[in-house]
């Protein structure tokens, strides 16, 4: 019999646990840890006493790869970190290298960059919404969200030929001119989103089960957010009106009129509301930007060979998940000497333990969903 070959289970006194406690291994393969996240939960019944994250299952050494590639060659790799918001990743990286090179980006390129990143922000939020709802047990929104996300991906596909890992931008501006129906497609997408968001609200916002499951769960107030370095919708849901697009405008965001949605209590429901409103604000930005794409060149004065002077730069953007920073060090050669990525998901996930303590197992799932992690970015 197979059982005899196994070592006997440890006696209760040999474990560090109290007799009422239970260690539950959630992941790395679990339906709702969004990839290969492993959370070691210490439980008392269903109540969580502590959560310890084990990450790195998806570590590919992106920062090491950067050292062995030229500046242009590394650009496709950044798409594969937060693969849900590849366009934002690309924008951050390009901006960091442009900062080192000290080049001016033509306004046309800036406008197109803004449009695509905002479309990407909506796509990323849609994926979050679908999977978050799925975690909480609502199985329909995920399909509706993917239906709308498809439209966003079609825009990317038409623009640059790829849907997910787009490699849409190049250092110095853009590689591709906009396609024929670009403006119409973007506006149609905005119209569609504004209509469909109502559907999500009907399914979730008012629903008493949804409200019960999310209100007061995983609270992280403004003080904690700053302490844990948590940014993005989580910080805004805690009442801090801080958005890099407003605080330190880049890529011409200061030209557009939009609001930074905030909420007060910093719980899961507030984050949900903040992200839903952000989708609307993104639509606003897209409408303004599409209406005023300036004519002109799409690429700044950047040669075929990119060789920035020795130096360093830290450039960060407001990615859908929070502050995405690139710290690039150049030694004057063709390859970047060091590329450090400051991933929002990684830092935000650090606050998981804080958010989970005292909640129930079912809430852990909701909290992981509400942080909106992408393991590709956490592990890099």
């Amino acid at each position, binding site marked *: 019999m*197979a*059982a005899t070959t*196994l070592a006997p*289970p440890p006696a209760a006194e040999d474990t560090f646990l109290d007799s009422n406690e*239970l260690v*539950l291994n959630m992941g790395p393969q*679990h*339906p*709702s840890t969004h990839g290969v996240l492993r959370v070691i939960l210490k439980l008392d019944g*269903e109540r969580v006493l502590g959560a310890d994250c084990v990450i790195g299952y998806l570590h590919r050494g992106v920062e090491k790869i950067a050292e062995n590639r030229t500046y242009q060659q590394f650009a496709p790799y950044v798409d594969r970190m937060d693969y849900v918001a590849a366009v934002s990743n690309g924008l951050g990286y390009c901006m960091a290298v442009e900062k080192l090179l000290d080049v001016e980006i033509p306004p046309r390129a800036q406008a197109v960059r803004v449009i695509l990143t905002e479309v990407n922000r909506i796509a990323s939020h849609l994926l979050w919404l679908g999977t978050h*709802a*799925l*975690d*909480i*047990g*609502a*199985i*329909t929104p995920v*399909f*509706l969200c993917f*239906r709308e996300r498809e439209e966003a991906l079609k825009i990317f596909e038409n623009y640059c030929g790829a849907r997910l890992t787009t490699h849409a931008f190049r250092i110095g501006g853009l590689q591709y001119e906009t396609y024929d129906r670009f403006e119409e497609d973007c506006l149609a997408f905005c119209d569609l989103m504004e209509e469909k968001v109502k559907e999500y609200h009907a*399914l*979730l916002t008012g*629903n008493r*089960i*949804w409200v*019960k*499951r999310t209100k007061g769960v995983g609270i992280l107030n403004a003080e904690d957010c700053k302490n844990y370095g948590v940014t993005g919708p989580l910080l805004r849901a805690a009442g801090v009106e801080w958005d890099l697009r407003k605080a330190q405008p880049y890529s011409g965001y200061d030209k557009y009129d939009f609001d930074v949605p905030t909420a007060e209590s910093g719980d899961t429901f507030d984050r949900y509301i903040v992200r839903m409103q952000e989708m609307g604000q993104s639509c606003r930005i897209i409408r303004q930007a599409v209406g005023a794409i300036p004519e002109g060149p799409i690429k700044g004065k950047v040669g075929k060979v990119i060789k920035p002077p020795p130096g360093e730069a830290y450039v960060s953007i407001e990615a859908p998940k929070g502050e995405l920073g690139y710290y690039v060090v150049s030694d004057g050669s063709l390859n970047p000497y060091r590329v450090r990525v400051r991933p929002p998901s990684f830092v935000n996930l650090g606050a998981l333990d804080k958010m989970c303590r005292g909640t*129930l*197992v*079912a*809430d*852990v*799932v909701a909290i992981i969903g509400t942080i909106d992690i992408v393991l590709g970015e956490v592990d890099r």
Partner: protein
Amino acid sequence: MEELLANPYVGPLVLTVAIILVFPLIVGYMVLAERKVLADLQVRLGPMRVGPYGVLQPLADALKLLLKEDIIPARADKWIFWLAPVLSVFTGLTALAVLPLSDRLYVADVNIGILFILAMSSIGALGLILGGWSANSKYSLMGSLRAAAQMVSYEVPLGFATVTAIMCAGTLSMQGVIDSQFERGVWGAFDNYGLMLIPTVLFIIAGTAETNRAPFDLPEAESELVAGFHTEYSGFRWSLFFLAEYAAIVVISALCVTLFFGGWLRPFPNVELLEIPFNTVFPAGLCLLIAFGCLKGVGKQVVPGFRFLMAAIAAAFLGAAGLFVLPLTNELVIGLFWFAFKLGVMVYLFIWYRGTFPRFRYDQLMDVGWKWLIPISMAGLVLNGAVQLLARG
């Protein structure tokens, strides 16, 4: 032969065997219906590959489940692990015995039929608890603990709602309940000036929880506990649990239909005028519609075998339409038709919930059960009792 038919044991025995044989097939098609309806709610298509529009999918699923490796975890309690799904299926199928499928089609008309069903569904919970416990897995254990708590809590409002209905009918026999609804000329749900709607709604909610269906599917909450109590089950054993779950759905839906929606009675059973439209035109029309749809689908099929199958299905439904048109056969099958139709609507309702609502949390589930459903169901019982006393004397 005559003697054989007169023997009181033969008819029920035949029916029992028939149910045991046919029921897995019905469950298979319920699963297909669930997948298709869910897909429809979710702007998808569902299974489309096995057979035309996926009509042979249940067979493929069954084959797959039977051929899968049967795993017993190393540290599992082997005998209980083996016993648990059997227990679940046994209780689920036994409860089917007292269901009146039509005015003449039932295994037994026991005078305490409703009690029997409630008892069986209580024991069914034991299967889940044992299954989860014996697997020696933390996810399973938590699932089975949840199952225990949930079933015990929701049996109370379910019981109160049932008692209200029984009080209204004045009998515990399933056939008796239907007969009393016929005599009073109104479905149980709308009796007592509509006050019976309270227990009806409560029964549906508590019944959903009793069968572990979304939004009360905590024992198997797939996003939290992987698969809850049957995490460690695979292959045939797992499919037994599946069978038990769907048997429970059928039983609860059937109970609901019998108590509140007139069982195998047609709508407005006392209005002579509606006899023809409801008993002939509606079922025959429905069958014709499906047959017509299948015929239209024949041309769209690529594989010749699929075309043939579609045509066969169309022919079967045409034949069924014929059954309803002929008065002699109509009388035989109309009760079954209405029972199945109402059951179908109930099952659709179950699937519809599942496709719409998020899942409750464990403590919220208890909250809803004890703080809301039980007080309301008790109030409903008292209210209905008072009204009945005043109105009927």
